[in-house]
C-alpha cells in the first residue's frame, strides 16, 4: 500500500505550484475575473501549449501525456490554491472525461486532439432551477432523418459562453429520470446554438446560459447509443466531482495558510494574535478539515483512475466521489469562512483575497451537488437497499 505521491507525481505537483505562483498571482486573478471571458487567452495558450496541462490524462494515442487522475487531482488542488482563472475544470474535468468515458474512437481522436492543441470545451446538462441529478436533463432530442434535432435551455454551464466544443446532455421528449438520456459532442458554433454569459457571485469562475433552437446534428455527433447515456453521464459527473473536490482542498489549504500568515503578523494587546489559543484552536480545526479533505480527495482520485481504466476498484467511484465532495465542500467553506473571521475587519474588504476564496468555496460547494445532496445519495445506499 502506497497511499502517497510517487516521485513523479510529487514533481508534477511541485511544478504546478511553482508555475501557478508565477502566473496566477492575486493581481492576475483580479484582472481576469472582471472580464466577461474570465481568463487570459495568452495564459491559456501557455497552459495548454507549453505546460500541456489539458492533455495531462489524455492517452498518448490522442496526443496527450497519458498520465493519471492522481496527477490531475494534484494539479487541480494547486489551481484551487491560487484561484486560477482558466477553463480548466470545464475542459478537462468535464469534457475530457466525457470523451474518455463516452466518446467513440473517432470522436476521441478528433476532439481530444483539438483539446490537446489548445481548444476549450465544456459539458451542459442542467435545466434552469434544477439539481444535478438525471431530472436536471430537460433539453430534448428528436430523430431527424440520419441525424437529430436538439432543443432546450441550459444554465450553470461552466465557461459555456467561451468553450469551443460542447458536450450536451439531452433526453427523448417523453422520457423521465435516467431513461432516454443521450450525449452529443459538437462545435459550439453549430447553427441554432446561442450562448450568454451569466454574471456570477464567484467572479473567478464563469457560467453561461445556452439555448438550443432546433439544432441539427448528424448521427455521428451522438456519444454511444441514443437514449442509453445515463450510466456514462453519471460516471462523467462523478469524475468531474472528484476533480472539483481536489480543487476544494486547495481552496481550504490557502484559506488556512493566509489566515495563519495574517494572524502571525497582526498585533493586538501587545502580542501577535496567533499566540492566543482562541485563534490557534480555530486554525487547528481548519488544519484538521484540510488534511481530512486531502485524504478523501486523493482516495477518490485513486478510485477515479481505477474507474477510467475499467478496473474492479473503480466500482466504488460514486461512493468515493460523494464522500470527497461532501467533506471537501464543507472543509473549503469552513476554512474560508473561518479565514474571514481570523482576518477580522479586513476579511470583509474587497482588498484582501480571503473573500475571493470564500466565494470560490461556495460556488464549488453548489456545483455538482452540495454536501447535503451527496450525503443523501450515500444515505440511499446505506439505508434504503435490501436487508443490510
Amino acid at each position, binding site marked *: *500500500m*502506497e*497511499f*502517497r*505521491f*510517487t516521485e513523479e*507525481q*510529487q514533481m508534477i*505537483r511541485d511544478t504546478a505550484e511553482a508555475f501557478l505562483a508565477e502566473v496566477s498571482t492575486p493581481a492576475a486573478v483580479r484582472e481576469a475575473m472582471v472580464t466577461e471571458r474570465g481568463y487570459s487567452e495568452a495564459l491559456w495558450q501557455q497552459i495548454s501549449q507549453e505546460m500541456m496541462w489539458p492533455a495531462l490524462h489524455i492517452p498518448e494515442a490522442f496526443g496527450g501525456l497519458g498520465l493519471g487522475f*492522481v496527477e490531475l487531482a494534484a494539479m487541480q488542488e494547486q489551481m484551487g490554491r491560487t484561484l486560477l482563472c482558466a477553463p480548466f475544470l470545464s475542459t478537462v474535468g468535464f469534457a475530457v472525461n466525457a470523451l474518455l468515458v463516452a466518446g467513440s474512437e473517432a470522436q476521441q481522436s478528433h476532439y481530444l486532439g483539438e483539446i490537446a492543441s489548445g481548444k476549450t470545451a465544456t459539458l451542459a446538462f442542467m435545466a434552469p432551477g434544477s439539481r444535478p441529478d438525471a431530472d436536471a436533463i430537460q433539453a430534448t432530442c428528436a430523430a431527424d432523418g440520419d441525424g437529430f434535432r436538439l432543443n432546450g435551455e441550459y444554465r450553470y454551464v461552466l465557461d459555456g459562453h467561451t468553450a469551443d466544443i460542447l458536450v450536451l446532455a439531452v433526453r427523448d421528449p417523453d422520457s423521465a429520470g435516467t431513461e432516454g438520456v443521450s450525449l452529443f459532442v459538437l462545435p459550439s458554433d453549430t447553427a441554432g446554438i446561442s450562448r450568454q454569459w451569466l454574471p456570477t457571485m464567484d467572479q473567478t469562475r464563469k457560467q453561461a446560459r445556452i439555448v438550443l433552437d432546433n439544432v441539427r446534428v448528424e448521427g455521428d455527433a451522438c456519444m454511444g447509443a441514443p437514449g442509453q447515456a445515463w450510466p456514462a453521464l453519471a460516471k462523467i459527473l462523478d469524475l468531474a466531482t472528484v476533480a472539483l473536490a481536489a480543487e476544494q482542498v486547495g481552496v481550504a489549504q490557502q484559506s*488556512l495558510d493566509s489566515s*495563519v500568515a495574517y*494572524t*502571525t503578523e497582526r498585533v493586538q494587546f501587545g*502580542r*501577535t494574535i*496567533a*499566540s492566543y*489559543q482562541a*485563534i*490557534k*484552536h480555530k*486554525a*487547528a*480545526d481548519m*488544519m*484538521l478539515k484540510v*488534511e*481530512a479533505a*486531502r*485524504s*478523501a480527495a*486523493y*482516495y477518490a*482520485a*485513486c*478510485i477515479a483512475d481505477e474507474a477510467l481504466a475499467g478496473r474492479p*476498484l473503480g466500482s466504488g467511484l460514486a461512493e468515493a466521489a*460523494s*464522500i470527497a465532495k*461532501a*467533506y471537501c465542500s464543507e472543509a473549503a467553506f469552513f476554512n474560508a469562512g473561518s479565514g474571514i473571521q481570523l482576518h477580522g475587519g479586513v476579511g470583509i474588504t474587497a482588498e484582501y483575497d480571503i473573500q475571493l476564496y470564500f466565494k470560490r468555496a461556495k460556488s464549488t460547494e453548489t456545483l455538482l451537488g452540495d454536501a*447535503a445532496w451527496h*450525503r*443523501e445519495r*450515500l*444515505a440511499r445506499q*446505506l*439505508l*434504503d437497499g435490501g436487508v*443490510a
Partner: protein
Amino acid sequence: MKLSFSPEDELFREEVVSWLADNLCGEFEPIRFRGGPGDEHSFVEERKAWEQKLAEGGWTCIGWPKQHGGRAATVEQQVIFNEEYARAGGPGRMGHIGETLMGPTLIAFGSDAQRERYLPGIRAGREFWCQGYSEPSAGSDLANVKTRARLDENTGEWRINGQKVWTSLAHESQYVFVIARTDPESVAHKGLGFFLVAMDQPGVTVRPIEQLTGTSEFNEVFFDDAVCAADDIVGAPGEGWKVAMGLLGFERGVSTLGQQMLFQNELDEIVRVARANGAARDPALRQRIAEAHIGLRIMRFNSMRMLSGGGDDGSLQKEAMIYKLYWSSWHRNLGKLAMDVLGAESEIVPEAPYGLSRLQSMYLFTRADTIYGGTNQIQRNIIAERALGMPREPRG
C-alpha cells in the same frame, strides 16, 4: 499512489483470518466483540485465557523483533492483523499495554536483564501491565509529577511514594510502570525516573474509580513506600522523561485500522436500529448517519496515508497530528447519533439497576475519548504550534 496490499500481505491476511476462525469460537464465543473501550471490565478471566491462546498461536507481540519472541511483522501486517482481529470480533486485548508500550520501551531502552525478565511474560500472555503516568495534579501537564522515588541506602532498593490516577486495568495487572521524581528538588521534566513496579505488595493499593457508566475501567493507585528493586529502573535516574516520551512514540498507528473496525461495528449496529425503528426515514437522521459513514471512511483513508509514511513534503506528517482530534470528535458524535436514532428507547436501561446497553455505554464513554491521551484542547495547541508554527503558549 497504490491502494491495495501486496500479494504477500494478502496471504498473511488469509492466515490471520483462518486462525481466528478456527480459534475464536467454542469457549471463547461469549467474549467476541466484548472488552473494548467502555467494556474493559467484562470477561476478564476469559480474556486472560484468550491472551494465552493468542500467544500459543504466535499472535501476541507480532511487531516485536524475532529475537524477543515476535514475528518482526511489517507495519502493513500489523495493520492487517488488527483489522482482521477487530472484524472477527476479537475481544479487547488484556495485554495491549505490555505488548504495545512496555515491550517496545524495554526493547529500546531496557537492559538485557530487564528484557529477559519481563518480555517473555508479556509475549506469553501471562503477565499484564498498567501505566502509571497521570496524577491528580499531572494530567495534561504530565511533567508536573509529584510521586517520588528514593534509593534506600540500607537495602539498595527504590522506595516509591505518591499517587497515580486513571490507571486502566490496575486491578488486573501484575506490574505497573511508573514515572517518579528521583531528584526531590527537580521540577518539570527534569529529575524523573522510569520504574518497573510489582503490584502485588503491601505498599501498593488500588482503588477503582466508578465512572458515569457505573463501571470501573480506571483506578487510583497509591504508593506507600512501595518497593522496587535497584535494577528495575529503565535508563538512569533523571532519564525518565526521555524514556516516557520515547514510549509514547511507539504507538505508530498500527492499531488505528483495528480501532476503526470497532467503530464500523458500532455504526453498523446504528444502521440496523435505524432501519428497524424507522429512523432511517427521518431526513435529518439520514444526513447524520451518512455523515458518520463519511467520517469513518475518511478516517480510514487518513490512516492509509499515515501508514504510507510521510506528508506531502516528506517530513512532517500532518495527517498523523490530526488523528486523535479527528477520531475522538467523530466517535463522540457517533455516541450522540446512536441515542438520537434510538429515540425514546435510548433512555430505557435494559437491566436494573444500571446495566447499560452497548450503545448506551458507548454514548457515555465517548465523552472520555476527547479527554484521555491528550484532551482536544491540548491536541489543538499541539497542531497549531508544531504543525502550523504558531507561537507557543507561555509556560507558567
